[in-house]
């Protein structure tokens, strides 16, 4: 199952917007989208959650893999615009302590530069 991911660029920051549901069924598809960008040299990624309704632990795992790969190459991953119930899960799992989460796209871009 493929996931739809919209992409927008803001100078040297690439913004990815996964759409709908990111679960065990399409986490692999999301992983290849994200990791293709990392391997082709993108260093500053923002994942904007405003079009995402659901993320499972398999989707969160992809973000962790991307954060590790980017950190190894002196890059950054910033998340933004999460719905409250999703942000709560990131907080409880401790993800917010290892991957920065911002309220808006603007603050995510500011944190990436």
């Amino acid at each position: 199952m493929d996931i739809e991911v919209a992409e927008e660029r803001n100078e040297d920051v690439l913004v990815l917007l996964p759409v709908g549901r990111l679960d065990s069924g399409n986490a692999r598809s999301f992983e290849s989208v994200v990791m293709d960008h990392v391997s082709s040299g993108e260093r500053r990624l923002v994942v904007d959650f405003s079009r995402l309704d659901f993320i499972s632990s398999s989707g969160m795992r992809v973000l962790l893999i991307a954060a590790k790969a980017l950190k190894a190459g002196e890059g950054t991953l910033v998340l933004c615009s999460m719905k409250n119930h999703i942000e709560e899960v990131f907080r409880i799992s401790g993800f917010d302590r290892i991957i920065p989460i911002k309220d808006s796209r603007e603050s995510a871009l500011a944190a990436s530069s």
Partner: protein
Amino acid sequence: MAMMDELHVSLSPRLSAVRSLAQMVEEFGDANKLPDQQIYMINLALDELITNTVSYGLRGVTRPRIEITLQVGETSLALTMEDNGQPFDPTANPDPDLSSAVDERPVGGLGLHLIKTFADRVNYEYVNGKNRLTLEHDLTPEAR
């Protein structure tokens, strides 16, 4: 007011079953006025549990079945999953280390940890050749 509503779904174990089940859970949650957070946690648990069971527990089982029951009581919400796969106790899994830095963090083990963290009570038993896992979430009066 005593209130008890139940959703029971018997699934043939396919990964694609997770999505149609998620839809049913959302409709059930809306009908019972459950908070979004609770519906989300139930669907997060189901995605994790069904994926694990279909990918590992039910491999090679002749007539594989998964039964899901969701019960709304006056003070709590209970999710029960039964399957006739290999005995597997998810409550016995070690918790991941969530305090470590990004580059040291293991990528697995997160889903079960979330399930255990969010549930107020977790019970596992293996009876009559079936795994039975029950997750109970307390409902606050405001939430009802």
